[in-house]
């Protein structure tokens, strides 16, 4: 990955960093959140499959570890750079053209609410080429469609290397859909986040 100037350039141009992940993604996200620099100049949106009615400690754990302010998304929250936003359970999270988040309680996709596809597809409409999306470990193909839409819109799309992912189905589905610009190992992902 070193010396790939195009990758670095597209990353630096991005106004938003989108993370999608499911089973096996937690540890990677935990570390990613801790190394993101305060002067990132991007908004970070994390869509992780999670159970409803499960008082999860994710926000608390992540924010203890983060150098950027972090919050669970509420409807019509304004998206600002240098902040981390986490998609809440039992809602889909969409990004609106007016720079606000919108929530939606419609049908689960791939048995998941939040769905990674829903957020990524709406982000493609808003950010076009000024987005970086990273799809991590997971046990279903959610995210592949969204990654494809992002790639078609000119965004930078990255999948965790399925060979080192705890559960390879999710990144693999995106790769097979032709939706992925770069396949990276986690240490390469971490390196990119700091560059």
């Amino acid at each position, binding site marked *: 990955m070193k010396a790939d100037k195009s990758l670095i350039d597209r990353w630096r141009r991005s106004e938003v960093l989108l993370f999608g992940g499911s089973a096996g993604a937690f540890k990677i996200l935990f570390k990613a959140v801790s190394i993101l620099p305060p002067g990132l100049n991007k908004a970070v949106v994390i869509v992780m499959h999670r159970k409803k009615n499960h008082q999860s400690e994710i926000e608390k754990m992540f924010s203890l570890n983060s150098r950027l302010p972090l919050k669970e998304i509420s409807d019509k929250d304004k998206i600002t750079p240098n902040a981390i936003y986490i998609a809440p359970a039992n809602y889909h999270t969409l990004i609106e053209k007016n720079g606000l988040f*919108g929530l939606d309680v419609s049908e689960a996709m791939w048995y998941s609410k939040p769905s990674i596809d829903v957020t990524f597809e709406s982000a493609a409409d808003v950010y076009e080429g000024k987005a970086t999306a990273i799809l991590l470990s997971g046990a279903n193909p959610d995210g592949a469609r969204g990654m494809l839409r992002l790639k078609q819109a000119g965004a930078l799309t990255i999948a965790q290397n399925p060979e080192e992912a705890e559960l390879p189905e999710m990144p693999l589905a995106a790769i097979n859909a032709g939706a992925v610009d770069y396949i990276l190992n986690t240490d390469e992902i971490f390196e990119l986040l700091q560059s």
Partner: protein
Amino acid sequence: MDEASKTITNEQLSEIIDLVKQIHGFDFSDYSKASFKRRVNRVLMVKKLDFHDLKHLLVNDQGFFQDFLEEVTVNVTEMFRDPAFFKALCHDVVPYLSTWQHIKIWSAGCSSGEEAYSLAILMNQSGLKNKSFIYGTDINTIVLKEAKKGIYSLRNVKSYAENYLLTGLKGSLTDNFTTLYDAATVHNELKTNTLFSVHNLISDTAFNEFQLICCRNVFIYFETALQERVLDLFYKSLSPHGFLCLGSKETIRSDKFKKKFKPVNVKENIYQKIES
């Protein structure tokens, strides 16, 4: 993916919104765009239409519009969705409600009635059944028919029962249903305390005075300016010191109405009307 070719542009979305407003009198222009666009794209996918087919049907086929309306509005709902909210309602609101002679409750945007019946069950459990009455309204006549029937699939009721267990209410949710094969029907004694009818939050006015309005996960589909207009309707529809419950991720954004509603439970977005 050929699905992507069937998705509409923002300009086409505006065209559809204008057309529906002119021909059918429903105004979606202040709906949250990303979500509404996704719903319209879903109609195209489910019905296997392209943009021009959709326009044609909306203009020429009156029956199609009810279908369209049902598909574009989100009707996914649960009984006792967000158990923590119902806990808060019991703890922070019911004791206050019990001091009123009559308790009129409005479940606004009630869809197929799950929330209205959840409230009926809660009032029953709180010993307030005999002085409470629940009005459920929606813009969609098809889902209102479902609400009136109060029949839900056993599979859904089982998942609602899991929510119920977390509310701390007594007994089990299924105590309130009669089960036949794979369907569960809400007990008649709960149905007699409910009334379902058509009401459009965007174009209709206040129709009664309520002690409690529950409008949860409806504001998420509205842009903030429209939210403010609906807040005005709710303010006018509440009795002095009446309560307004929004969804767990919905807050009052309008400065004007922040002054007119006092938060009772910040986490669950329960508010009380301040008399001015």
